[in-house]
């Protein structure tokens, strides 16, 4: 059976791993290569490097990290953050990443997805969305708006309509990041995950809000996510990856147990 994935995310700024709360206030959370090595040994199913420097210097630093990590770690690596063009996508894949994660770029130029998926295959084109819950309009139906530039800029795009377009254009996987939940450790936005799961058929990665193993369990079951991404609970060793996986498998969720 296909296992639910646990994916630690490393937010990298100037070569250090940092962690923010609701997209701000950086806290230093360690050396990315050291962390990646620890996560690999613990049985992470994938690793995400997210470049929040988002400058060309920052990109070189992240690529250097990917290079170092991929020499000795044999699990999939995904790189995101500040990717603007088709050439950026190509350079990142060539540099040793298995997937790229696009976020703001498709809002400006949706063609980047089509073009990259045609050249490299949908399997390596991940689209991430940052969604903020809209105030209740009285309809009883929740809705979310897409934000870009690290959650700073509203786009006016409706999240559920936007995910349709991303998938139609060739996104092979979606990362759903809830701005409301990000860094709060209060739990994932289950409604957001469920609403997207009903609309599209590609795998979904839930992101933002993991605070307990129960939160992860909820989003992988009720939330219908294929994978759970988390940052701070792993960086600060609130939980280890084996602890999360044991919790999940005790409750009947299929996970991959890593034989060290």
């Amino acid at each position: 059976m296909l296992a639910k994935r646990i994916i630690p995310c490393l937010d990298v700024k100037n070569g250090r791993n940092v962690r923010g709360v609701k997209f701000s206030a950086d806290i230093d959370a360690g050396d990315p290569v050291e962390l990646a090595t620890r996560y690999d040994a613990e049985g992470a199913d994938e690793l995400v490097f997210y470049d929040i420097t988002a400058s060309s210097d920052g990109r070189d630093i992240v690529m250097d990290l990917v290079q170092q990590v991929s020499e000795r770690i044999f699990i999939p690596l995904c790189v995101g953050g500040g990717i603007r063009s088709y050439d950026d996508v190509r350079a990142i894949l060539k540099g040793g990443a298995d997937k790229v994660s696009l976020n703001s770029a498709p809002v400006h130029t949706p063609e980047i997805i089509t073009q990259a998926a045609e050249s490299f295959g949908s399997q390596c084109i991940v689209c991430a969305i940052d969604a903020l819950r809209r105030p209740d309009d009285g309809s009883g139906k929740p809705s979310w708006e897409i934000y870009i530039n690290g959650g700073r800029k509203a786009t006016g795009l409706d999240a559920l309509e936007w995910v349709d377009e991303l998938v139609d254009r060739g996104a092979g996987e979606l990362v759903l990041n809830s701005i409301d939940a990000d860094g709060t450790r209060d739990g994932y936005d289950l409604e957001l995950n469920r609403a997207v799961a009903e609309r599209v058929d590609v795998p979904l990665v839930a992101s933002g809000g993991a605070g307990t193993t129960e939160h992860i369990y909820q989003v992988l079951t009720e939330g219908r996510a294929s994978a759970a991404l988390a940052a701070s609970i792993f960086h600060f060793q609130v939980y280890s990856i084996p602890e999360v996986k044991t919790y999940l498998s005790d409750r009947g969720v299929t996970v991959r147990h890593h034989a060290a």
Partner: protein
Amino acid sequence: MIAIADYGMGNLRSVEKAFQFLGHDAFVTDDPQRTRDASHLVLPGDAAFGDAMRKLRAAGWDTAITDHIATGRPFLGICVGLQLMFASSEEMGQHTGLDLFAGRCRRFPAQERVPQIGWNQISIQQPCAILDGVEEGSFFYFVHSYYVEADVESESVALTDYGLSYTSIAARDNIFGVQFHPEKSQQVGLRLLANFAALN
């Protein structure tokens, strides 16, 4: 020396790195002639079947692969590389493959999320040299939207479930194909690659 075929598709460096990590000489080449002196040949692939076959044929890889196999040297197809070893595919039209295995490549049924992305288990159907030391039920990393339907039961070495049961490892003599990415499957994947590299 292990040659890795570069026909303009996919992340080949990770396959090369995995063999090098295991202490084997491996090289990526876009020149089919360079496989003449190679002890082993690996055909990776991440792209669409039709495109991949066109590029393989245009560069003369189809002939190089047939020649390599005819001498009994070990051959391994990975992901789309496995799919290309079959007779045909229905991915975006009808395409013919390398026809090393009888069978065809089909799209996953609609009730599952496609592509299948993640770690899934293999159920071993018969002994196979590249599975030495690999346990029944081991998890490997898969990324694909199409699967192979093998016509010859004895060539279907392992099965995997995703909405249906399909062939995830095909083998005959010294030719092998795996649907998953051993180079992305941690220790168990490295073990499989080490087994392949040890064949002669």
